[in-house]
Structure formats: structure tokens, C-alpha cells
């Protein structure tokens, strides 16, 4: 994951906490989240943040709809 200052933010997804429901993928306005091809310890395909161009605003939509509070949203200030 490469982050630039263009969108001024990024998110981190706790891969073990995620149950792969896909609600964050459904609401992301820039379509920056996708299902991982790997399994986590529960046997789900967790969501994965994929933002090669650094477009994440960060709006926090994914955080607000995540039922397992697996997402932490960061703002770039410097």
C-alpha cells in the first residue's frame, strides 16, 4: 500500500477482527476496499485496503458502517 498526500488519509483494517461482510466495500465512494484473497483465522476473506493512487479522503464511511469496529481511520496532517 502506497499512500500519498493527495487524498490526505488512509485506513487500517484489523484482518483478524473482520468477518468479511462487505458493508464497507459497498459504501466506499472511491472503491478503495476489496476482499482479500487470503483467509483469516476465522475462515473469512477479510476486507483489504487497496489505494495505490492515494485517493482516500478520508470520509469515514467505512468506519461508520463496520459492524465489527475493525477499521481505524487516519488523517495525514503533516
Amino acid at each position, binding site marked *: 500500500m502506497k499512500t500519498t498526500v493527495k487524498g490526505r488519509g488512509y485506513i487500517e483494517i484489523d484482518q483478524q477482527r473482520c468477518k468479511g461482510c462487505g458493508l464497507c466495500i459497498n459504501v466506499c465512494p472511491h472503491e478503495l476496499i476489496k476482499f482479500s484473497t487470503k483467509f483469516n483465522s476465522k475462515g473469512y476473506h477479510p476486507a483489504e485496503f487497496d489505494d495505490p493512487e492515494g485517493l482516500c479522503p*478520508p470520509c469515514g464511511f467505512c468506519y461508520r458502517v463496520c459492524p465489527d469496529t475493525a477499521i481505524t481511520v487516519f488523517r495525514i496532517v503533516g
Partner: protein
Amino acid sequence: MKNAEKLKTVVFLKRPESLTDKEFTYCPGCHHGIVHRLVAEVIDELKIRERTILVAPVGCSVFAYEFFNVDGTVAPHGRAPAVATGMKRARPDLVVFTYQGDGDLAAIGTSEIIHAANRGERITVIFINNAVYGMTGGQMAPTTLIGMKTTTSPYGRDEKRDGYPIHIPEMLKEFKGVAFLARTTVSDPVEVIRTKNAIKKAFLAQINDLGLGLVEVLSACPTGWGMDPVEATRWVKEVFSKEYKTGVFVDKVK
């Protein structure tokens, strides 16, 4: 990530302090987790974590006391408002809230919530309406929509045999003891913010000594409904919230 570490960052949104580190035991896509987080955020914002008591129900959220970082107990099925009444009357300085599902509050506990509302008990009730009994396997509840298929109504709910869906806030809005009453959903980010504001007001109704605060949250049960999480969330928005109109019914918190 290497590039990000060089930049100065601040945490914008993270797991609230009023939740413990324990992972939720709910099914993938269950809206219980969203509402848990909203309640925890409100407790953090009002700075009442040290003096809040939770009354957990019987149902999927029976282990809510393990997820919230507050003191809590479990009431018999439907009796959470009665237990909360006792707690609040014994210790009026504490903040007491109940977290109940529709099988708990709208079926076996209808009497308790009606009389708690009529007495104007200073408690907060978070009411999760997902139209089925989720924990026991998706049976028909009083809130099930007409024609909706569940495991105990395989041909759809028939109003002649099973009656009509029960609307709790419409029923309670006539009581003078109620200080805040709203129905919301958590089907998209905007509705999540509205729900959070409603939950905050329901807590303020208690803290400002105005009366009972109740928020009904229309929630998805993907497992009970036999849908995937995204489809279930869309169904809440397009079908479920047409029968149960969202909005604020009583607002004495200004």
C-alpha cells in the same frame, strides 16, 4: 505503508473506549455491532462511562455486558425495563440503559416497557427491531412484516391468523412520561450519524431528568432473513423502513 509512516498522521476515527477488546460474537453483517459502537461513542462523548449500568436482554445481544466496558447485568426475558427501574430508583445518580431486541421488548416485554414509559422512569432504552427472533433461528416476531417468510411462517405472515406488525414508538408517544422517542436505521453512513444523535438525546433525556428515552433502530438480520449482508442492508432501506416510518416522535430534549 512505508510512505505513510514518514508522514505525520492523527487517528481520525477508532474503536471507542467504552467497548472492550473482545470481538463481537454476532454474524457477519449484523447491525448489532454498529449500534453497540454508537452507544459506546455516546457514552464516551458524555463522559459517563464510570457511572453507567447496562441491562442486557435475552437474545443475540445477551452477552452485551462482555462487549461494553461498563457494569452490567442480564434481566429475564423482556424484564429489562423493570430491572432498570429498580437500579435507577436505588441509585438515581447513575445512568441506566437497557439494550433490547424485538422478541424481548415487543413480544414478551410489552407490558414492562409500556408501564415504564407511563411512569416516566429515567432510563434509556435501545430497541433493536430486526423483524425476527434472531438467536433461536429466525422465527416470526410481532414485528414481522405481512407476507414475510420466516421459519414459523413459511408461507408468509398472514394478518388473519398472526395479526399485524406492532409499532412500539407510535404506541408509546401518547404517554406523558416519555421524553425522547425516535425510530432510525443504520442502513447507510448518513443514517448512522442520525442514529447516533438520537441515541445521544435518549441519554440526555435521562441525564437531564426529563423522562424515558427510547430509540428504535431498524436493523438487519442477514442470517434470519436468508440474505447476504449487503442485500439485507438494502432491504432495510427499501422495504423494512416503508412499513416502519423513521423519524422523531417525541423530543423534549432541547
